[in-house]
């Protein structure tokens, strides 16, 4: 079930009404409802993978309890490694098996040897990377004695499979989400309205921004050899907005939906394209994943405490693993490595924590210096996204060589240039709203808060009109579902 589908528009109000009107004030029933709704939501994709989700949930719940009750460190370690191995095993088989098998065959063939690997026709269970990481953080936190194991299975299962975050995050932590699940929730008018506003803005990002940019990005990336350098740049910029609109739109809908049920999820995006350097970008892009890798990989590896080589090594590891997490393709690894290269100079010169606050805080416009920094960071990001979007590393390299040609300084030209101009106009409106709301959790949170209700409602109705007039005519899945 997609967030941007009619089915979800029916599903959400039903669950909401049952939750607040029918079983209000009964926490156990509310959590049970959330679990049933979440499993139903997941089963709408492919009910067979529901068993995998249930098994993964049961495994981590059980090993969590066993670790807590273990009489010796060895016993605790056994249960810990069992959970880690099985979780990563599932991820490895479903997500990476074919990649490793094919890469191994290719490597062997360079030595003149031919083997026929048994590649499997595997469907990637939607959300496996996300719920596996939920489970992993829970198990690691128990092992490290940061939290106690959850005894109530329903509460734990809701933590893993709460439907707004189940398939594409944010990647939650037990320390943040579980206490909310266990606490009685009271309906709050302001929070519910805020949730609806965030859903509305998320839908705008997905339906209007991402889906419209996608058609041009797909057209240009799909026929990259036919286009001029300037058109290829435009294609990369379209993809840059597509991926932001798609993923941050999903996150907004997830956060807004959770807020309707009285639950606050971790913030996942904080206006990353207004960042002044790459370090700031990574503090603002897919925050829940970046912080997960920081806490469960970078810091255990020694973080920035060791010598220079250790810092460089750890930085490369975290970015490459992060790239690999996105998918079994060398393009994601190249994308991760490129970001590590961007990041390293800042880290080595200890400039990586220069820009902690949002740009031009309290001001309407940025300074010229800030604007230049934003433009450079944006340009670097656009360049890196080429690897992320390309079909293969070869495709990415040919795309880049196409950009750096004489035709870079010509006017972009491709068959759908007129609709593209309309999309660029909408993008300008979008960037303006995002800029004005950059100090808030999401762009329209405080927009129009002092306006009279008819004016505010007119703005929301205008957004609905833009949906209707510019949305893609087919429901398109979110990019991050494939991860």
């Amino acid at each position, binding site marked *: 079930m997609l967030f941007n589908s009619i089915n979800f528009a029916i599903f959400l109000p039903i669950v909401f009404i049952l939750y607040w009107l029918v079983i209000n004030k009964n926490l156990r029933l509310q959590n049970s409802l959330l679990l049933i709704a979440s499993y139903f939501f997941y089963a709408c994709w492919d009910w067979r993978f529901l068993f995998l989700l249930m098994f993964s949930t049961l495994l981590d719940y059980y090993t969590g309890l066993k670790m807590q009750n273990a009489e010796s460190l060895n016993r605790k370690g056994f249960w810990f490694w069992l959970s880690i191995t099985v979780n990563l095993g599932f991820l490895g088989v479903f997500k990476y098996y074919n990649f490793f098998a094919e890469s191994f065959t290719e490597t062997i063939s360079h030595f003149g040897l031919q083997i026929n690997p048994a590649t499997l026709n595997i469907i990637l269970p939607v959300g496996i990377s996300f719920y596996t990481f939920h489970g992993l953080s829970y198990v690691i936190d128990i092992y490290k004695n940061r939290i106690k194991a959850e005894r109530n299975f329903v509460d734990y299962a809701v933590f893993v499979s709460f439907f707004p975050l189940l398939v594409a995050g944010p990647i939650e932590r037990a320390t943040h989400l579980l206490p909310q699940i266990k606490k009685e929730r009271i309906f709050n008018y302001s929070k519910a309205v805020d949730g609806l506003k965030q859903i509305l803005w998320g839908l705008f990002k997905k339906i209007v921004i991402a889906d419209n940019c996608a058609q041009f990005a797909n057209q240009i990336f799909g026929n990259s050899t036919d286009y001029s350098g300037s058109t290829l740049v435009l294609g990369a910029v379209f993809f840059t907005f597509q991926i932001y609109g798609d993923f941050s739109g999903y996150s907004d809908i997830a956060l807004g939906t959770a807020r309707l049920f009285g639950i606050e999820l971790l913030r996942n995006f904080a206006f990353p394209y207004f960042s002044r350097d790459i370090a700031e970008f990574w503090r603002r892009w897919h925050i829940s994943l970046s912080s997960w890798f920081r806490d469960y990989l970078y810091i255990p590896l020694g973080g920035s405490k060791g010598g220079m080589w250790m810092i460089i090594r750890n930085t490369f590891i975290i970015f490459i693993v992060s790239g690999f997490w996105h998918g079994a393709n060398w393009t994601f690894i190249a994308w991760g490595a490129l970001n590590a290269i961007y990041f390293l100079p800042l880290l080595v010169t200890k400039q990586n924590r220069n820009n902690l606050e949002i740009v031009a805080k309290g001001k309407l416009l940025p300074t010229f210096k800030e604007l230049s920094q934003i433009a450079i960071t944006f340009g670097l990001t656009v360049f890196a996204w080429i690897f992320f979007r390309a079909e293969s590393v070869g495709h990415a390299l040919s795309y880049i060589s196409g950009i750096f040609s004489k035709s870079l300084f010509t006017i972009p030209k491709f068959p759908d240039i007129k609709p593209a101009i309309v999309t660029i106009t909408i993008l300008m409106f979008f960037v303006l709203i995002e800029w004005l709301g950059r100090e808030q959790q999401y762009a329209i949170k405080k927009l129009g808060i002092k306006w009279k209700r008819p004016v505010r409602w007119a703005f929301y109705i205008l957004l609905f009109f833009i949906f*209707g007039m510019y949305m893609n005519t087919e429901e398109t899945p979110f990019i991050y579902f494939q991860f």
Partner: protein
Amino acid sequence: MRKFFKNIFFFVFFLIIAYPFMIFLSGYLPIPQTFKPNLNYRIGSYGHMFTRIKELNQLNGDVDILFLGSSHSYRGFDPRNFNDKKVFNLGSSSQTPIQTKFLLKRYLNKINPKMIIYDVYPGTFSIDGVESSLDLIANDKNDLESIKMAFELNNIKIYNTLIYAGFADFFNLNKNFVEPIKKGEDTYISGGFVENKIHYYKFDNYSKREWTFKEEQVKAFQEIISLLKKKKLKTILVYAPITPRLYNSFTNNNFLESTIIKRNHLEYYDFNNLMKLNDSLYFYDTNHLNLNGVKLFNKKLIETLKL
């Protein structure tokens, strides 16, 4: 909680009023089409549907043969070639089974044909039918059946266009619209045919491929068959000629014949196998007969069906 639901109710209420009004304004004001991609109201568009419907409404019924299908129908069955028969061609651009079903439900009783000849070009089963629906919405009246068709296709472009059409019908905005009989190289011929200035096609070669058949189109086709059987109407299905090169590039031209047509024991003729036409001499593009080709095809049809 009550405040929340009350405000939601009022917001939805205002949205339901404001959204159609904004759609109407977008359609009414001279805004370039590029800026309103999901509103496509094209009265008097390609294929003379407006004139065809106008003529249909003036028919006295009791037609001998009703032709149905896509442009292959309204460009392939020329009433002038069926001298002693009263025929009407209700083909429309890219008409898929979903629109055919819609048109039959709306007009079958009025036309009251003795026989139906339905061109089942496989290409119409592989498309969603949005373009053809937009054509019908803009050029024909709109009623409950139009809304049903919109829900069946569930496409925002159709909903928006239907909303605008509702306003256009209500305010009678098209009362002064006159569709020229001759548009570009097309001339409307009484009886629903559209004659194209004679051209000769310079053929292309194609790689091998397969037709795809959308589930919803196959379902609509089955419903058409059931409707016509219920009415006990003599129905003949044909596959009008397309360029042999194009025809031979598809490996599953007999899909419908071997499945639904066979299952329903229907009379079917694939004229691509019954006659050999030269790609250039008898076609003006890859899948439309030119006037010379139409004459030959209609002659062969009359002979084959003993009309």
